[in-house]
């Protein structure tokens, strides 16, 4: 049930099967993303894959000494490209892998094109989804629905992605879906259809408890993607945006050239793997530790490096040091930027009110707080609109609803029309009329007591009190209490035991907050394994975009952080970032790869250079950072 591993295994198998020799990987646009999520460039280089080509690129040269591994989605265009390719083969031998089920007729036309007998393998390897985290996958589809209905092309893509996931994990599940959503039902039926049609493929070893596929619709919980996030991964996505593990930092003021785009991948970045689910305050202290550690590692004072033992230590740690310096500068930059945005946009305060809107039922205080923040000039128009959206969603039917007043306030604040329109759009999208279950008011006595107690005790962290609705749904599901009238089974069979292996799919996109929830559920409920997927992974912006009305290209929103008390350490980190960047600038002018400055003794001005040269860095004119994913290459 590890999706990253599943895809990685497929790719490894492809490479292994092609035997020794120089190889080229032929991919299409989507499979490029799929592969790049699980393999780094240096990793794949070690397996003798030296070139990465797009099947649709015209500028490919004939290289008969290469073996070609083709990993393609079984689309019409790809088959056509492949037929052309086989008619005039550019490589010596072809290993063809389709990421999904391919029709017999396509196989036949391919076979007929292969007059020179260059094809050695034709297989289906079901890596047809983007594996984001071990328990989180995405299909990178924005705007999968038109109104309440599926876009037919996206429906088939989603069906393919979902069935591929099931096949790659070797699960033949029972299906439940959210009754209130027509799209969920459609998707469930499509998946069922594929399972029936390809029943041979879905014959796996029976487990005692059959796995379960739960299909939900985003509109049931429109709140979660509207909130500011405070855990590392979610926050980075909310404030900076993660796209296939890559983060675009080019808008960061004063960013150095090589940090324009960074890669955050838990697979090869230990710090990130350890911290992606921690909240911003903890990250701050951890990054400080990282810095200190780094300071310790880097040669300190002049006389220090003069002693031979020190030099030796330096040499021995050099590659590590380099790697670490990359990690340090990357995370320091990212966290620095986050903290800048937090203070610039006053996000702490905004987030507090957001959480209040999402989790509490005190209308008058909420209204007051929203009004107060709307007066605050530091709050951006995006955040202001977002607060009103949350208010509108929560108090849609409240007796003393004063949404018109807030809309007035928005207009007075000078929030542009496009944002103001979003308020009604979101209510349309995820309002009470649409929701199948009640997001805000607790349903049963236990929950009411719980909330009462919570109100009594106060919350331990005001910024993270919100629990996505998914948590409750999954909790009920695991306990076997999920109501069948709201989430019916598809087909006559029902699950008698508690489910063990669960795949949750959210039409309209999941969020990293939900990913964290699932992660925690995985950890805390032994015997239960949950994988979360969505048509995409949302942040607020993408969520609003996918409701269909979000203006394109607006980048006006940014976010924030924990208790004010911790801020001191952030600004410190931030200061360090700036310093490091500045120093890095100087060093780069001297044509040296290490991004962070070393305080080198005066007597040894060339020492690192000597090292670099002797390590061969200099001699190799092409020296991409080892951690970089292969996609930027393509």
């Amino acid at each position: 049930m590890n999706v990253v591993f599943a895809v990685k295994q497929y790719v490894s198998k492809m490479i292994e099967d092609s035997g020794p020799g120089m190889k080229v990987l032929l991919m299409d646009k989507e499979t490029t993303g799929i592969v790049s999520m699980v393999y780094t460039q240096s990793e794949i280089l070690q397996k003798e894959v030296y070139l990465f080509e797009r099947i649709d690129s015209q500028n490919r040269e004939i290289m008969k000494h290469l073996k070609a591994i083709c990993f393609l989605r079984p689309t019409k265009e790809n088959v056509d490209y492949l037929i052309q390719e086989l008619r005039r083969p550019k490589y010596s031998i072809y290993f063809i892998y389709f990421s999904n089920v391919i029709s017999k007729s396509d196989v036949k036309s391919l076979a007929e094109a292969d007059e020179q007998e260059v094809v050695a393998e034709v297989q289906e390897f079901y890596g047809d989804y983007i594996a984001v985290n071990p328990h989180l996958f995405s299909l990178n589809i924005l705007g999968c629905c038109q109104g309440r209905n599926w876009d037919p092309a996206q429906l088939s893509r989603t069906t393919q992605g979902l069935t591929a996931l099931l096949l790659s994990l070797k699960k033949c599940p029972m299906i439940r879906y959210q009754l209130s959503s027509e799209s969920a039902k459609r998707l469930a039926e499509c998946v069922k259809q594929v399972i029936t049609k390809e029943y041979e493929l879905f014959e796996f070893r029976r487990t005692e408890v059959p796995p379960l596929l739960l299909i939900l619709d985003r509109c049931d919980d429109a709140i979660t993607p509207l909130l500011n996030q405070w855990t590392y991964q979610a926050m980075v996505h909310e404030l900076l945006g993660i796209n296939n593990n890559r983060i675009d930092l080019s808008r960061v003021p004063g960013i150095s050239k090589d940090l324009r785009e960074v890669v955050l991948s838990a697979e090869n970045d230990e710090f990130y793997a350890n911290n992606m689910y921690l909240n911003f305050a903890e990250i701050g202290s951890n990054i400080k530790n990282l810095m200190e550690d780094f300071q310790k590692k880097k040669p300190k004072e002049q006389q220090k490096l003069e002693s031979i033992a020190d030099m030796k230590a330096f040499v021995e740690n050099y590659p590590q040091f380099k790697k670490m310096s990359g990690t340090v500068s990357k995370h320091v930059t990212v966290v620095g930027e986050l903290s800048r945005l937090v203070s610039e946009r006053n996000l702490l305060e905004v987030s507090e009110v957001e959480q209040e809107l999402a989790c509490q039922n005190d209308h008058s205080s909420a209204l007051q707080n929203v009004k107060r923040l709307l007066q605050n000039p530091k709050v951006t128009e995006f955040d202001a609109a977002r607060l009103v959206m949350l208010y509108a969603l929560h108090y849609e039917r409240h007796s003393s609803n004063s949404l018109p007043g807030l809309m007035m306030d928005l207009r007075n604040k000078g929030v542009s029309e496009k944002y103001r329109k979003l308020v009604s759009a979101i209510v349309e999208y995820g309002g009470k009329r649409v929701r199948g279950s009640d997001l805000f008011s607790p349903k049963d006595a236990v929950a009411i007591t719980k909330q009462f107690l919570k109100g009594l005790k106060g919350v331990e962290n005001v910024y993270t009190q919100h629990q996505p609705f998914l948590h409750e749904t999954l909790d009920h599901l695991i306990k076997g209490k999920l109501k069948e009238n709201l989430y019916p089974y598809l087909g006559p069979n029902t699950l008698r035991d508690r489910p063990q292996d669960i795949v949750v799919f959210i039409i309209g996109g999941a969020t990293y907050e939900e990913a964290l929830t699932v992660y925690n559920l995985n950890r805390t409920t032994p015997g239960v394994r949950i994988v979360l997927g969505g048509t995409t992974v949302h942040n607020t912006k993408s969520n609003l975009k996918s409701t269909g009305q979000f203006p394109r290209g607006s980048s006006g929103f940014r976010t924030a952080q924990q208790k004010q008390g911790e801020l001191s350490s952030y600004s410190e980190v931030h200061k360090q970032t700036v310093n490091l960047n500045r120093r890095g600038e100087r060093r780069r002018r001297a044509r040296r790869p290490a991004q962070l400055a070393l305080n080198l003794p005066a007597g040894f001005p060339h020492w690192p250079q000597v090292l670099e040269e002797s390590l061969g860095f200099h001699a190799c004119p092409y020296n991409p950072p080892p951690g970089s994913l292969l996609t930027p290459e393509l």
Partner: protein
Amino acid sequence: MASLDDPGEVREGFLCPLCLKDLQSFCQLQSHYEEEHSGEDRDVKGQIKSLVQKAKKAKNRLLKREGDDRAESGTQGYESFSYGGVDPYMWEPQELGAVRSHLSDFKKHRAARIDHYVVEVNKLIIRLEKLTAFDRTNTESAKIRAIEKSVVPWVNDQDVPFCPDCGNKFSIRNRRHHCRLCGSIMCKKCMELISLPFANKLTSASKDSLSTHTSPSQSPNSVHGSRRGSISSMSSVSSVLDEKDDDRIRCCTHCKDTLLKREQQIDEKEHTPDIVKLYEKLRLCMEKVDQKAPEYIRMAASLNAGETTYSLEHASDLRIEVQKVYELIDALSKKILTLGLNQDPPPHPNTLRLQRMIRYSATLFVQEKLLGLMSLPTREQFEELKKKRKQEMERKRILERQAALESQRRLKERWSDLAPRTANGEVASLRGGPAPLRKAEGWLPLSGGQGQSEDSDPLLQQIHNITSFIRQARAAGRADEVRTLQENLRQLQDEYDQQQTEKAIELSRRQAEEEDLQREQLQMLREREWEREREQFQAASLHTRTRSLDFREIRPFQLEPGREPRTHLAYALDLGSSPVQSSAAQKTPSPVSALEPVRVWSGPPAVGQEPLPQSTVSQQSELASLNPFEEEDPSSPTADGTTSPPAAEPASGPSACVLKEYNPFEEEEEEAVAGNPFTNPDSPAPNPFDEEDEYPCPRPSSPPVPGNPFEEATCTNPFEMDSDSGPEGEEPIEEELLLQQIDNIKAYIFDAKQCGRLDEVELLTENLRELKRTLAKQKGGTD
């Protein structure tokens, strides 16, 4: 594992609590238990549980140690996210997801198609062969036509009113042409021609592949000009126009295409591009590294720990071998990188990208593997390591004995049979044995006092057994067995170490006031000194490290081991008469007046009598003069503790500045430093004697030695080592090194020129000239 049968001893491993069978792993034990003893008492289950827990604890400890190592090497000690429970990263291994192969389907369809295609091609080739089988130039065209017509029936002219390819109507002006290979008709524009050489190439290639009879080009050299049978032929006037093809064959585009494809296939079959050849070599080298490097690392680790399971020479040979392979990899990948760069039509960008990627991955490979390649101790360091290890063993034994005595008092029933054994002989060997002997011979005899038979601990005994096994296995040349044994040994030693430390901790707490305390303190003292020594070794071994890092320069590999001794000998001959001079001669090339500080530095111990230490040395032992570098070792002339620590201290100052001033290129300096045989494992010191002889100066470790141990301890402070290595860089440079250096500098110059750093070029050229001069001088000197 004979001693496992010993009833009195403590056994460990995954033992079954009921039948005491040793099982290899926890899982095995569990299954064994379930199989064999499932029916038995419940009580035992509790026992096994506690056992399992213990085992787990031990395992945890092991894991923790590993983890610590890892943490040290990577990012360290961050608070990681741990709520407990199962991390999705830790989910149990999963098998490869579902797959489905369409290959058989594909092959079926392809086979049908291919058959068709192959038949087509073969038909064309056979016809082509027939068409070229006779002497076209000497045959009349009518006859040619007849033959051509016999090969394939021509399509009737009347049947084809339009050119099937371009659709133009045939007329008097737009005449019909027949394809000689398939008989079809096309117009002149759509007609293709096949030249005879091309036809021959195709036919002979298929002949070769079929290994049939020889090629048809047996045509005798026709002296006649071309024979145009135009007049004799009655066909038409127009035939004059098109009957000029006695050296080529008409055909349609389709046939030509097929033939061209065929030709391409033939070409590709025969052609292997350079890059493939180089790449294959590269991969071979990488495989070799993958094979050899782990072996070497094992050896080096063992040697650096002072173990004697491997021989130093063997290891250094292996090291050289591995390094050679690395250099080869580097050279090959560089060659691949620059492949075809100077060709006229520059290679396709993708070719270049491929070359860059190969180079990059080779660089990654070397970086990764080479850095794991630890250095070897020099011969003398190794001796000391061995000594140290022995001492440590001895110390442990003492501690253990004390612990045994202690525990004897407390847990008589358990250790009762051990006590008499431990008591014997050990004290004597401790008190009387080592110290005086040490003074004379550098602790070597300790090994005698350390008789293996009297090992009191079964673990120790086992260790010794295994050591001897290893020796035997090595003699028998069974490397794999050695490896497993080694593994075994290491585990045992780890266990032993742990046991000892635990005991020692308890003991030291208890007997703090007793007389033994003194000994303890002395040992502590010694330990500290060892530590210091170790620092030195590490410092010294740096040179080898840096050296080994420099694989950037590709040069024809010059380190023939056989050559090394000869040069040394040559030196020895020369040095016998004027060692100082020669070293001075060597130094002249260095741009600065480095000479002075060095002399000054090496002077103090001898108080300005320069010749004196030299002569003493040569009197002392021939061996010293055999190796020119060792002479300068400050420890030999100043053997008897005359070095006052302060003298050594300031010395490090000038030497450091020499280091700096020596020349602007550190790398060069590294080379020079690395070149000295003390640290360079490439050149096994041709020293027939044991290194101890060079060190009448005792390692400042034995307390009974006259003189203040503390003072001696300061002698061995790291500075001394530093200053040692500094001037060693200034030593007469070996010829070979000089040559290498010259090569290097040439490469630098080239590099600098390319990058347009003219000032650097100048500097380098000057440097090069000096080096060459030195080389010439040196050659003159040795001849």
